[in-house]
């Protein structure tokens, strides 16, 4: 929680004046105000009464302590994300039964299942002090706890759909050994940290779509005294203070937002009073606040934070009303500027309206406007973008400098569920693309241009090592996507394991670099030797390089080898995939009466590899 957060009884009337959920969310995002339970409930009722359509989120809660007191906070935080929470609580204390295929939890078909557990549930020895446990008995207990937890989560993974989120309630008291704990070989804190790390390893390796939501992080944020309300714990077995309840609800619904809402991809940054204090055009490079002293150190901290977001896989762009040379001088020469020109995938430094610049950024980066988070200190600019580009999420730079470094930390869509190699080098990929465009511009013959790229495509079939990236591609790809079906890691794993599905993906490299895994096809094989193209998608970053045709031909050649005689495919139009409207007819598919497309592979067999300007390695 932000230290500046304060209670404000006058906030409610202005919030209740909002005429849409989006409007209310915008007003709420601009305030660090803590809300009381009653205020949150009042706002929830107001949000529910608005005509705006909300997206349903089905939440299942399995718990070994009282959980229904979280509901008002969960509902509120869901509504704040534009989600409507449908919450099911499993019977108190029963954990393993809920994982049975015929359980009420499974029948609830949750998008997210939240496990609220205590350490004591994990092993009988944990209800006693472990302050004298050393050596093998200590590591043995850790191994057993990790094994028990992994087994429990596997049972849930086997029968419960959606994301599975484990929480472990932190201790109500500091370690049993007190101050000596951190020095002791029997350290309780170190033991728990070890268990969490070992469990995380198992989740990564074996249990897709299963994660640990670490409540210790919230405990650290709030402090033990603010996290627990001992009165409710000892009277009703409900551990959380209102502050902690809301924070837990916020984190759960952030997960919901990532699953249900369009993915954020780009952070568009204002410069003056956002990346540094002051106005560079007036104060000059040496006059802006950026450096070791307050308030310049706050802006250095924020820039560091922005580099964290870049490591999470978000693209940074600059959108500033300034003379380009003033801003570029800071990017190139200021000794304390952390974000240099190469950290930005694209820059707009001019005097045009920001809405216009954001549109052109979306065009250049080949992403939708709904994948932007825009941050600016000016009320005027924020409001203009908020009202003219309703799909962009707007964050106003806080007026108090102290609040700036953390101002994006609570933007739900800037959380990530997975992190792939592609994410880590995304900005570099866009810089490569800029160079590719320059080459194309200097080349009048498109075929010659494609050959000059010296492209190599690596196709893999049913490869589980790429699970995270493949699920991510189904979640994020909007434009080059025939059916826009979203799949979780667990779904993709099922397709990979199933004999009657083919999961094909490709990565693409050229003289400018390796774009990583950028294309995916999911094919369902029928008993009558026909195939159905469930999903065919490609990342926007390789559009225009003829990769889709080479990939389709390679896929069809592989299917023909397996005796497949025809392929049925669908184009499901969305607001964003007009790009592929003609893809099927242009690739030998014939429109049928039932709105499907059919390609007879005997009549129209796939072309040879050498007709494409791409070398293919298909293992």
């Amino acid at each position: 929680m932000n230290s500046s957060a304060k209670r404000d009884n006058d906030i409610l009337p202005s919030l209740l004046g909002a005429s849409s959920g989006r409007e209310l969310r915008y007003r709420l995002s601009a305030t660090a105000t803590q809300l009381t339970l009653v205020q949150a409930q009042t706002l929830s009722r107001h949000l529910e009464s608005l005509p705006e359509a909300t997206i349903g989120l089905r939440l299942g809660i399995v718990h070994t302590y009282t959980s229904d007191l979280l509901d008002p906070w969960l509902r509120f935080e869901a509504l704040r994300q534009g989600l409507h929470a449908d919450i099911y609580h499993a019977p108190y204390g029963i954990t393993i039964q809920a994982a049975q295929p015929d359980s009420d939890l499974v029948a609830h078909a949750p998008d997210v299942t939240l496990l609220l557990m205590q350490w004591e549930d994990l092993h009988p020895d944990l209800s006693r002090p472990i302050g004298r446990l050393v050596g093998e008995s200590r590591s043995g207990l850790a191994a057993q706890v990790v094994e028990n937890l992994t087994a429990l989560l596997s049972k849930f993974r086997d029968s419960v759909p959606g994301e599975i989120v484990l929480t472990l309630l932190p201790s109500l008291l500091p370690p049993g050994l007190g101050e000596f704990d951190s020095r002791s070989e029997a350290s309780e804190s170190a033991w728990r940290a070890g268990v969490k790390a070992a469990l995380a390893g198992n989740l990564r390796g074996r249990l897709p779509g299963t994660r640990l939501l670490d409540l210790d992080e919230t405990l650290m944020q709030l402090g033990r005294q603010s996290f627990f309300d001992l009165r409710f714990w000892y009277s009703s077995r409900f551990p959380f203070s209102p502050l902690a309840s809301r924070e837990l609800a916020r984190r759960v619904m952030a997960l919901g937002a990532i699953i249900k809402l369009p993915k954020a991809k780009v952070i568009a940054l204002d410069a003056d009073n956002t990346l540094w204090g002051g106005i560079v055009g007036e104060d000059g490079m040496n006059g802006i606040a950026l450096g070791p002293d307050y308030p310049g150190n706050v802006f250095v901290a924020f820039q560091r934070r922005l580099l964290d977001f870049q490591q999470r896989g978000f693209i940074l762009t600059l959108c500033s009303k300034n003379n380009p040379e003033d801003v570029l001088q800071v990017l190139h020469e200021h000794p304390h500027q952390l974000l240099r020109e190469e950290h930005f995938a694209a820059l707009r430094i001019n005097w045009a309206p920001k809405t216009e610049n954001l549109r052109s950024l979306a065009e250049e980066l080949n992403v939708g406007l709904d994948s932007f988070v825009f941050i600016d200190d000016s009320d005027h600019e924020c409001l203009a973008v908020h009202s003219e580009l309703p799909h962009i999420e707007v964050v106003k730079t806080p007026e108090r400098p102290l609040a700036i470094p953390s101002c994006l930390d609570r933007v739900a869509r800037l959380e990530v569920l997975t992190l792939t190699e592609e994410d880590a080098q995304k900005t570099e990929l866009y810089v490569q693309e800029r160079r590719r465009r320059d080459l194309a511009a200097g080349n009048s013959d498109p075929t010659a241009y494609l050959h000059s790229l010296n492209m190599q495509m690596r196709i893999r079939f049913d490869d589980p090592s790429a699970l995270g990236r493949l699920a991510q591609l189904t979640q994020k790809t909007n434009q080059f996507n025939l059916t826009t079906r979203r799949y979780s890691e667990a779904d993709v794993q099922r397709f990979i394991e199933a004999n009657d599905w083919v999961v094909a993906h490709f990565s693409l490299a050229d003289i400018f670099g390796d774009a990583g895994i950028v294309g995916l096809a999911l094919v369902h094989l029928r008993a009558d030797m026909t195939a159905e193209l469930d999903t065919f998608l490609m990342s926007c970053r390789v559009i225009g390089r003829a990769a889709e045709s080479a990939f389709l031909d390679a896929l069809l050649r592989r299917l023909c080898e397996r005796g497949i005689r025809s392929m049925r495919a669908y184009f499901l139009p969305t607001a964003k995939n007009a790009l592929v409207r003609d893809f099927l007819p242009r690739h030998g598919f014939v429109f049928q009466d039932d709105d499907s497309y059919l390609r007879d592979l005997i009549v129209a067999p796939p072309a040879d590899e050498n007709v494409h300007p791409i070398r293919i390695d298909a293992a």
Partner: protein
Amino acid sequence: MSTFEQLQEVMAPALNVSADTITPTSAQSNLAAWDSLGHVNLMVALEDAFGIELQIEDFSKLGSVRAILEYLKSQGVE
């Protein structure tokens, strides 16, 4: 606004009922919405609305409008 009217305003959202459902004789024993979940909600709401801090011992004593009004009076809320 009388303390009772203020209390109505606080209790209604906490118990998720309309304000006129709350009468001077309302109690856990005669109001279905005032269940154990509603009661904990109500305790939090009372603290927020009246700026008081309840002790765990108070929770079980404040099971009726009459008891809450008496308690508020003892805390100087009139």
